[in-house]
């Protein structure tokens, strides 16, 4: 029994059916694929000219798919942005404030009598970037859960691609925060504080206290790994780098998790409760993993274990069937 050859563009059609909405599929993608199929079956003078025609046809199809994909992604992202950005921004501000307050309460009374107002403001402002790296993924997750839950099922499907793009953008922002802004703020904070408290130690190099791992940026960490002072230092620095990288990937895991959690329970309280529980679980796993990173081989396993476990949970929640009552509610 001979196997029947597939029609030209058949696998592209299957892929497009999974990605594009019905209107785009019917009005743009399928007509283009139909013409591709027709063109590829036309008789031609030589094999070379047939190959050229096929190549030209497929390149045009990829252009159509790329155009439709980009348009869909941008349209859905704009929609997702308009729906969730305000909630995420408010949650981010609240959590940042909540994380900044404890060190503020601890430090300000200690240094306030010994510094002028400008230095005090500088110290307070330098505390903010230290909180941002934690508050951003948490706020992103909670803002998404609340927003996606409120959306109807068709709107939720439109939110998916926007959420994925948003998670990537958020991850890039986290990279900038954890690898550059936070180390700079940490070092600046220590310098301002030591100057304010009149520490008489002479620093080498001059200008501030020597940098610890938390004060090293991306370049400095990589330099320290490339030229380690000792085997122990090499392991510790690598573990620290992976902790920061794992933190950068957290928005992607949280984005998927938000899509999986939202709409799984009818009650808003249950949804937010589950979200906070998983967030706490992530925090515990991440803390344990970061602590264990120096002792576990390979080094990256510890920091990434929280992302791995919660990521698997997110995918499972995305694909597990919802209860009939919840489905009926979302179908309107």
């Amino acid at each position, binding site marked *: 029994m001979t196997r029947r050859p597939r029609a030209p563009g058949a696998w592209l059609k299957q892929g497009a059916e999974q990605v594009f909405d019905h209107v785009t599929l019917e009005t743009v993608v399928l*007509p283009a694929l139909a013409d591709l199929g027709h063109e590829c079956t036309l008789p031609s003078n030589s094999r070379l000219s047939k190959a050229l025609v096929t190549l030209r046809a497929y390149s045009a199809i990829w252009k159509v798919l790329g155009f439709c994909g980009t348009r869909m992604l941008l349209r859905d992202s704009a929609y997702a942005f308009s729906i969730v950005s305000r909630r995420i921004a408010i949650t981010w501000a609240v959590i940042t404030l909540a994380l900044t307050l404890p060190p503020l309460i601890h430090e300000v009374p200690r240094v306030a009598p010994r510094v002028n107002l400008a230095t005090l403001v500088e110290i307070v402002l330098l505390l903010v970037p230290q909180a941002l790296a934690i508050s951003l993924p948490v706020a992103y997750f909670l803002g998404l859960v609340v927003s996606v839950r409120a959306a109807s099922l068709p709107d939720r499907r439109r939110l998916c691609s926007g959420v994925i793009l948003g998670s990537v953008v958020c991850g890039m922002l986290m990279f900038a925060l954890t690898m550059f802004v936070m180390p700079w703020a940490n070092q600046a904070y220590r310098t301002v504080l030591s100057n304010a408290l009149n520490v008489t130690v002479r620093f080498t190099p001059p200008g501030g206290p020597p940098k610890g791992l938390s004060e090293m940026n991306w370049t400095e960490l990589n330099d320290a790994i490339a030229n380690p002072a000792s085997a122990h230092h090499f392991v510790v620095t690598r573990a620290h780098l992976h902790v920061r990288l794992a933190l950068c990937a957290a928005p992607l895991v949280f984005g998927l998790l938000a899509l999986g959690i939202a709409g799984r329970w009818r009650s808003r309280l249950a949804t937010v409760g589950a979200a906070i529980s998983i967030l706490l679980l992530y925090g515990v796993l991440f803390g344990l993993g970061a602590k264990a990173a120096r002792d576990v081989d390979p080094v990256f396993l510890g920091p990434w274990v929280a992302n791995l476990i919660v990521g698997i949970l997110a995918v499972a929640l995305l694909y597990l069937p919802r209860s009939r009552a919840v489905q009926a509610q979302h179908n309107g």
Partner: protein
Amino acid sequence: MKRRRTERLGLSAKERVVLELLVASGSMYGLQLVDESRGRLKRGTVYVTLGRMEQKGLVESQHEPATRDPQAIPRRMYRPTGHGRRVLDAWTTVARVLAMEPGR
């Protein structure tokens, strides 16, 4: 409301080429439009243009009759709607009037 009406009447250069070709020939496939346009329409964007024009009600389409190969995706034949013909007429008239204006 006003904006929506303007969008319905708006005609880009590519849409105008498509309408001119369709009005002249009656009905055509996407690929035929590209071939007949002498480079004014591109294969990568003609389907997007046709899809948009269909949503605006300027053209309508129907599948070709079933072919011998059941696996093949049926091609889509496009033809102008009455609204599309009127819009093209209006644009042609406006273009003619502007061309006749003294000092242009």
